[in-house]
């Protein structure tokens, strides 16, 4: 039914590729006690390289984290190794210093554009240099609008109205509309090809929990991409996460890789 499929594809949910992901996940299936020889849902992959398979040049990539906390640094490293280029990155920050994975990814020159709320920080030298020299495009979005645009993509809402940024430089050129005497801007969903997510616990279905402030953008990003890849500190048995305490249902997740990297670096620098 061509029309329907085309319509759905507008949001980037290409049927074939999703089925491919499921097939890929199934390949990872292996015998488990009591269900020997039976293939089942198992989204775990055994290496970061496997987790990155199929990411194409030109992809839009969401990355979780608020600074270092809940940031999937090892997956970003994997993306560098993978080599995809002409990328659009979407996340809150643009990294600081010269050694963290996000900054090294920017330095490869494979990122065309970054959509974020807070690119500038004390140490955001690489972003600064590349942006000033015209090598990296910036779309600056208020943090709440960024979050809502990502959430909207995952929720099948193509656009919504928000009061944020009305009358400011960041609202220029946007469609304005009045509701009940107040002015709002029209904002569009940010649908991505790939989401890179950092979780605390994951099971083989891809059900996730996040630790404290590590939650931040991760749950909404997990919903907004065609291919959601998770690095999890802990892999747990199916059923170990309480049904009422799962933060991201596995339905949103395509691949999970175990990355027990430990704690994020304590961060006392003042940035946002």
């Amino acid at each position, binding site marked *: 039914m061509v029309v329907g499929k085309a319509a759905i594809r507008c949001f980037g949910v290409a*049927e074939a590729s999703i089925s491919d992901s499921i097939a890929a996940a199934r390949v990872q299936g292996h015998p488990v006690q009591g269900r020997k020889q039976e293939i089942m849902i198992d989204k775990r992959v055994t290496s970061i390289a496997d987790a990155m398979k199929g990411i194409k040049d030109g992809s839009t990539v969401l990355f979780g984290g608020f600074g270092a906390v809940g940031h999937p640094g090892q997956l970003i490293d994997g993306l560098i190794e993978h080599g995809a280029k002409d990328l659009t990155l979407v996340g809150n920050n643009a990294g600081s210093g010269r050694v963290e994975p996000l900054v090294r990814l920017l330095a490869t020159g494979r990122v065309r554009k970054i959509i974020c709320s807070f690119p500038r920080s004390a140490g955001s030298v690489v972003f600064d240099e590349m942006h000033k020299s015209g090598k990296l495009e910036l779309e600056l979005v208020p943090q709440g609008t960024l979050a809502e645009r990502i959430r909207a993509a995952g929720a099948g809402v193509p656009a919504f109205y928000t009061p944020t940024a009305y009358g400011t430089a960041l609202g220029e050129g946007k469609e304005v509309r009045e509701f009940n005497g107040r002015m709002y801007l029209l904002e569009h969903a940010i649908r991505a090809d790939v989401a890179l997510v950092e979780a605390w616990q994951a099971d083989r279905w891809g059900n996730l929990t996040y630790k404290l402030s590590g939650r931040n953008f991760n749950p909404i990003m997990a*919903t907004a991409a065609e291919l959601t890849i998770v690095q999890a500190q802990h892999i747990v048995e199916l059923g170990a996460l309480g*049904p009422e305490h799962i933060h991201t249902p596995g339905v949103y997740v395509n691949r999970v890789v175990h990355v027990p990297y430990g704690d994020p670096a304590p961060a006392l620098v003042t940035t946002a």
Partner: protein
Amino acid sequence: MTTTASRATGAAEGFKPWTRPEMAARLAKDIPEGWCVNLGIGIPLLVSNFVKGREVIFHSENGIVGMGGLQKPEELEPWLVNAGKQNVNLVTGASIVHHADSFAMIRGGHIDLCVLGAFEVAENGDFANWTTSLTDGVPAVGGAMDLAVGAKRLWVIMDHTSKDGRPKLLERCALPLTALKAVSRVYTNFAVIDVGPQGFEVIDMAPGLSMEALEAQTGAKLKRKAA
């Protein structure tokens, strides 16, 4: 007169229509392991009986991801209900979300398949399943319209003809629509039919049924699906 009527027709034509469990089993066969599936109330719910041994995740729009079967009297947990407000179980790995998150999952294209019943399906994929009249009685819509536009694919399971023997697969729907161009496949007691770019394409027929006999019970052109 309902299924009996259809079957009588079948008998008259010299073939044996599929029973409801057979229809549900035929549909279930086409669900790959790993899909997340929402089943409507009625015949669609029967589908869950025929996926044993495969991990299929059933979604219920009131916020259950990983719904199990109906509760037995001895396992009563009154705080768990499905979309039909029957008491159900959770499977291992299930999670609970609130209503906005559940419909975000639906609308956002995260449900691989929705199976619904219908009054009418048109050859362009339009379908009608929520009310037979906008003026008589009180209409109710529930989550049907959201599921119809939101799930990655929508399959309809229904009797091939109405209770009084009229075709339910039509050139155009006459009843109030649930969604436009939404149905991709129809499972009836007579046949399995894809909704293709040029209209209905027959994939499978009940044993003994001829294409001519099927066309006689259908309100739109049929062609065989190319292999």
